């Protein structure tokens, strides 16, 4: 079981949350080239290292937040920050 520190609800079982992968900015759909858009859709960093990622507190506060997790050891480094849906602006 992975305890994910939600900024509003405190540590929660990862089963209570939804994972949204690497946290990266969404390009503007109106001006992005097809290449930029597809890179945004399909290419994510997949390191065996620290990764800044987005989570959604599905059965708690129902908010998105970002945090840094080590994908090898499952440690959390930075305090979780309130965030938006992955890549999107509020």
């Amino acid at each position, binding site marked *: *079981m992975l305890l994910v520190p939600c900024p509003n609800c405190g540590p929660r079982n990862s*089963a209570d949350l939804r994972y949204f992968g690497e946290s990266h900015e969404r390009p503007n759909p109106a001006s992005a080239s*097809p290449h930029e858009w597809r890179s945004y859709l399909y290419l994510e960093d997949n390191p*065996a290292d620290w990764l800044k990622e987005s989570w959604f507190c599905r059965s708690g506060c129902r908010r998105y937040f970002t945090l840094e997790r080590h994908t090898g050891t499952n440690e959390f480094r930075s305090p979780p920050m309130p965030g938006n849906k992955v890549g999107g602006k509020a």
Partner: protein
Amino acid sequence: MGVLQKSKPARYSAVGLVRRGLRGDTWPRVWREVPLKKSYDVVIIGGGVHGLATAYYLATNHGITDVAVLDKAYLGSGGSGRNTAIVRSNYLTPEGVAFYDRSLQLYKTMAADLNMNVMFSERGHMTLAHTDGALRTMHWRAEVNKLQNINSSVIDPAEVKKLAPSLDTSSHPRYPILGALYHPPGGTIRHDAVVWGYARGADARGVEMHQKTEVLDITVEGGSGPDGKGPGGTVTGVRTSKGDISAPIVVNCTAGWATLISDMAGVRLPISTRPLQAAVTEPVKVFLPTVVVSGSLHVYVSQTDRGELVFGASVDPFNNYSVRGSLDFTEELASHVLELMPGISRMRLLRQWAGLCDMTPDYSPVMGFTPVQGFLCDVGWGTYGFKAGPVSGEQMAYCIATNETPELISAFNLSRFAAGELVGEKGAAAVGH
């Protein structure tokens, strides 16, 4: 590292087994251990079933034997030794069906081809449907399969009960069994023997296997990225923990670690690494004659010849390079399996483990050439890599030898993501129906 003299490998046979048993002879090593050379024609990174099959078919079909297979651990230490050893070809897309069917054909004749008992058991494969929607998908899959001459049909609960009496086919459970997609050619195989068989066959033809040899970097010249890497570049070799190697062709067959290797060449892959957990019970008398899969319940069950039940599930819900098991998984697995087979509630789990899956957005692999000249990929195999091992090796060997992409894998190229031509394979094991 001791250098063993190369002698003609002993042919395995029943007579040889008896003779060696009576004489008390020791068995010769299955493959040589030789020092790493300075250069090879082809370097294959990853000593699993994909890497070894590629090396084997390069040597047998194309006569290319100056090949090194590198693995940072031991052969078959990754997904090849961690999967649930199920083979089948009843996929959903025509591309997928044609591809996995070729693999199944190669598995069928493998024991004779490799002179290795791979214990292929063609016991039949049953995918259960618990909802009307799932049943509809089963009919769809059955029709796609029939069109391609794959033996696959939808059966009703009475037939399911006949094939596997331990399943609860009553109307009471939360997930009643409404029918199943039955695929008689599917079955199980001993995955370690497949790895060893390919390694032994490749070794006999001159291919070198280097275990505990970690690739630290890939050298590329002329690319558009930093250090001359990236698109437009040409591979010149690899740096390993045992020294540098120059090679015009480097093949990435590293499954869960695929992005770490391809990042070294400056090639970005649309892959995320997720563990898939599996577990095995204590052995009991054989009672489950077929492989049973439930997409809705995310579980697949088969019984080994020793009598253990092997369970697999879907991939974990977040990216991870850790192969530790979790309690969440065990709880969920147990409740799902008991939903199907209430009679085994007193059985105990012996152990659980995880393997790393390289998931692509469309559940289809990434195979063939990349924007870096001489750097090829055979990755993105997610939850279906083992059953595709032989055909992937065969097709990748063809790619390397002829410098052309064969028809069978042309749909799986890396450029499909840029072109928006994804191959959505919803017959994959990780996908609910």
